[in-house]
């Protein structure tokens, strides 16, 4: 979710009125799913968070202002410079020629120019912010959209969008004072390091120059320090966007063009000549309208809203939210403005009606159909285990599931354990999903050595165990683990508590001696469980299922955890135990 700076100075000009005060502005912005995060009264700059990631047109001050104007009842704005593909507007000399070699590199471009008053600091900052938010946030860190802004007065038409050889093409990039090759830009320029991965490895790189051979930019990486260096006072701009999908570029080109038009600039379309087919043909005049109408059955909209709206009121509410609409029979047909492409389904219109009317106008109603509530078997079984352990004097703990690999392997004397590991951890402290709760309890013991002894702790929680039989390669298991730490704590304490726990959970158990490096040799056991003998079939063989381990922790393990007190533990797979009991 992007957060933008909205300057009072700019907003008031675009509204043609003073900026509404505090709570009123917040209420109005909420209809655009925008929230004020902070306001600096000294500079008149407001931080506004935009929650709707499908409405990039609202991520700019002119876009927000436009929404507020429509919502207060102004007429919908007209943007006649947006071509519809039917008429051929006059583009004069403003042509971009596209190189056939770009088809498999970065095939699409949209562009226009804007002429008007000399740009002030507030608007220039706004344009730079829009470029950044639309390219980086909406444009997937420039992969889908890279936007460039240039001084149009110095450009010799036509502009050429071509595939340039990386090593022999050289220009002075913004922020530098000497020429670099495209390859050198990727290696040396901060923007090259940040965005170079989008094009690196291609035989040629996208490159924009004018008819005189002056460099505009190396999209999606960096503008030239010449034509690409827009400053306060400039009054004529060339704007272009490149990327892999034309419609995405057309949408954002319309956002930028309509914003500049609202700010008092005359938008001049540009003809793009493609040597290959695009979704909108080979000759595309941009800004270009590409959206389709969306139709909604009024009756189904009213069912979803739970309220009778009526066709005329529906139309008015949609317009209030910024889109033209007309009534056709029993349907409402919505024509989105050129800067919006968020109507995927009729339900998107339904929400416009709801917000246009105001959520507060809908009376909350309780769902009236009866449904029985219930807990999962795991929850009920886990609660039974908790009750017994609390009765045995154990303090329940709850831990994070992510941890450090060494805590589960080296520190447990078990370097060969294989866990579910995260491929992209933030730090190595949160790099694996736990496959056992024992290390969590040892970590707690380590940091609780000032607490009065004895320590009896347990957790009932989930672990993820590697399991090739599962389609995802691991199995999540509800697990119950207890730890006792005291001067004379040992196998016998843990064994007695295990016996009590399993008795009250309705299971019989046996212990089978176990070699496990986590425990003192000869003081570790596998725990097998079975349903009580009475419920096994007459004469049938008693079957045992392994459900966990019991052991006295090895002093080497305690030393790894800097624990100075003997510890014994029991770990039980509650899911397996429950299944064992249910199957019997």
């Amino acid at each position: 979710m992007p957060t933008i700076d909205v300057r009072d100075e700019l907003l008031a000009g675009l509204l043609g009125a003073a900026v509404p005060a505090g709570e009123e502005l917040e209420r109005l912005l909420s209809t655009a799913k925008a929230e004020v995060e902070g306001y600096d009264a000294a500079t008149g700059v407001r931080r506004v968070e935009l929650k709707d990631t499908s409405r990039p047109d609202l991520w700019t001050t002119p876009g927000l202002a436009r929404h507020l104007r429509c919502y207060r009842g102004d007429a919908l704005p007209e943007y006649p410079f947006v071509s519809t593909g039917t008429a051929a507007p006059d583009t004069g000399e403003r042509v971009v020629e596209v190189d056939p070699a770009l088809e498999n590199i970065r095939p699409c471009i949209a562009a226009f120019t804007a002429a008007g008053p000399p740009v002030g600091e507030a608007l220039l900052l706004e344009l730079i912010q829009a470029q950044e938010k639309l390219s980086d946030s909406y444009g997937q860190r420039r992969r889908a959209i890279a936007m460039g802004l240039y001084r149009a007065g110095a450009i010799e038409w036509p502009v050429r969008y071509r595939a340039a050889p990386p090593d022999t093409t050289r220009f002075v990039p913004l922020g530098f004072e000497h020429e670099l090759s495209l390859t050198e830009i990727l290696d040396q320029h901060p923007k090259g390091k940040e965005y170079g991965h989008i094009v690196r490895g291609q035989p040629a790189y996208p490159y924009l120059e004018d008819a005189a051979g002056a460099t505009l930019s190396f999209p999606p990486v960096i503008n030239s320090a010449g034509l690409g260096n827009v400053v306060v006072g400039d009054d004529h701009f060339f704007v272009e966007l490149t990327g892999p999908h034309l419609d995405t570029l057309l949408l954002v080109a319309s956002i930028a063009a309509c914003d500049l038009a609202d700010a008092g600039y005359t938008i001049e379309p540009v003809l793009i000549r493609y040597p290959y087919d695009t979704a909108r043909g080979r000759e595309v005049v941009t800004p270009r309208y590409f959206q389709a109408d969306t139709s909604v059955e009024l009756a189904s909209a009213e069912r979803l809203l739970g309220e009778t709206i009526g066709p005329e009121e529906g139309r008015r509410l949609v317009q209030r939210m910024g889109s033209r609409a007309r009534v056709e029979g029993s349907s409402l047909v919505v024509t989105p403005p050129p800067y919006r492409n968020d109507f995927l389904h009729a339900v998107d219109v339904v929400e416009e009606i709801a917000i246009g009317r105001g959520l507060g106008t809908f009376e909350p109603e309780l769902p009236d159909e009866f449904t029985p509530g219930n807990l999962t078997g795991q929850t009920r079984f886990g609660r039974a285990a908790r009750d017994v352990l609390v009765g045995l004097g154990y303090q329940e703990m709850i831990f994070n599931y992510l941890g450090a690999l060494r805590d589960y392997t080296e520190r447990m004397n078990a370097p060969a354990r294989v866990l579910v590991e995260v491929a992209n951890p933030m730090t190595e402290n949160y790099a694996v999903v736990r496959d056992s709760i024992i290390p969590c309890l040892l970590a707690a013991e380590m940091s609780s050595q000032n607490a009065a002894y004895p320590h009896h702790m347990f957790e009932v929680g989930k672990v993820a165990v590697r399991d090739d039989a599962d389609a995802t390669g691991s199995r999540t298991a509800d697990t119950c683990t207890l730890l006792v730490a005291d001067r004379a704590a040992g196998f016998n304490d843990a064994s007695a508590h295990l016996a009590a726990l399993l008795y009250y959970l309705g299971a019989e158990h046996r212990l089978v001696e176990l070699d496990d490096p986590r425990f003192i040799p000869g003081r570790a056991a596998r725990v097998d469980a079975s349903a009580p003998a009475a419920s096994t079939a007459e004469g049938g063989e008693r079957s045992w299922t392994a459900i966990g381990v019991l052991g006295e922790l090895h002093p080497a393990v305690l030393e790894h955890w800097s624990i100075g007190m003997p510890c014994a533990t029991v770990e039980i797979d509650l899911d397996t135990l429950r299944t064992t009991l249910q199957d019997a």
Partner: protein
Amino acid sequence: MLSVLANLAMNSVEQLHPLEVRTLRAAAGELPFTAADLMAAAGLNLGQCNQAFSWLESKGLIAERERVRVVRYELTELGEQYRRDGLPEERIVALLRDAGPLPMPEIATRLGLEQRDVGSAYGALARERVLAMDGGRQVRAVGGESARVATVRGLLERLAGAGSEAAEALTGAEREQAAALSRKRGAARGVFRATESETVSYALTAAGQEMRRAAAAAGMSGVEVGSLTQGMLSDGSWRAVQFRRYNVNSPPGRVLLGRRNPYTAYLDRVRDQLTALGFEEFDGPLVETNFWCCDALFMPQFHAARDEHDVYFIKEPRHARQLPEPYLERVAATHADGWQTGSRGWGYRFDPDFARRTILRSHGTVVSAKTLTRAKVPGKYFGIMRCFRPDDVDASHLADFYQTEGIVLGEHVNLKTLLGLLKLFAEEVAGADSADVRYEPAYFPFTEPSVEVFIRHPTVGWIELGGSGIFRPEVTRPLGVDVPVLAWGLGIDRMAMMSLGIDDIRDLFSPDLDQVRRRVAH
């Protein structure tokens, strides 16, 4: 006097501790007594005597008479060494008698002594005419013994034998040497160590005399029975004994008990509230696929929240072996062109390999989506699920945390029932007043319309309670559901923090046993 009377009124013989009774009874009338006297007379140890004196004095039954300062001497480590190996003076004299005259540095070298120690020993011994120096600066023994050295030697042996001696028990000469050779405060070396202590003597007050008589009259010996035993019950001997009265206000010992964790207890309370409202609980695995976590929720595969900054990917295996049909096929078609959902779709080619990519679930809605494939109509479901997100861990962010999510399916559910549901949660689960609930438009890729609910907290102000919406048909239809589905989620960790009075989210998962033991649950 008034205070003594008041104390007397408050004290009754029965309330005396056995130690107090034994002390009073052993106290010798009006004569002063010390701990040492009573240790012998009442068979108490020093600790018991001091305890009894402290209690009796605070009750005004005895009063301090006299404090006598006593200095005792004992050997230091150096003193022990001198006793064993000889005093420097003794060794110098012995050496010179043995080896004949020697220059001073030679004496120091041979005996391993500091030269200045040899110097000062010589000075003293020369004055005592035991040593003298000749013209060639050679030191020699000239006869006689030093009475002073003999005294010190005697003292060394005496203290080694007795452990320590009071200053008064020493002879005048011994006392003089003991004081001269004692380690002064802060000095590194000393042959003797002096420790000062005080002997305090007490005498019974008038009230104490009275209490002593009362205890004697009541036949109390101070050996009253503390505990009723099983034996007394079985042989009936309890009839013949007197039980000591307890001070009911003395602080009890600390009990370490087994106890639920306040946070999980809170989560269970929410579970119980939701089941009481007719919700059935669901659950799911921690390791999920992109398909269920995002694709099935109609989040396009190029969505910004799906990259490595927002989701934890699994290292191995990278892909699930297969995904369930017909859901995969339908979801892929829905993303491409809307399939039969009435949507125009996202208009891109769906990548089934990316869908199989294994991840840690980043939100609980994944289980809501899976539940749709088996849900009843009407149906209400919920789950409290651990979710994972790459966040820097701080006071308000965790790498794994709980989300509470759920769905409501029904022919007749709509925006108004969605608001009704949120109102129910605000009032029943969060305990908000109905006037303090507010609904705002929201955005989630998988719901339309989408609504956030806020409640007014008495001190913090408006806070977000949760997000919700009506699942998009692009979500429900491919999973086989044709009725509207309300989807909702509550910020359970934040509610728990407010309920438990915690302001650092990491404390919810505290590994500190003492902190967990002490936290009071509401």
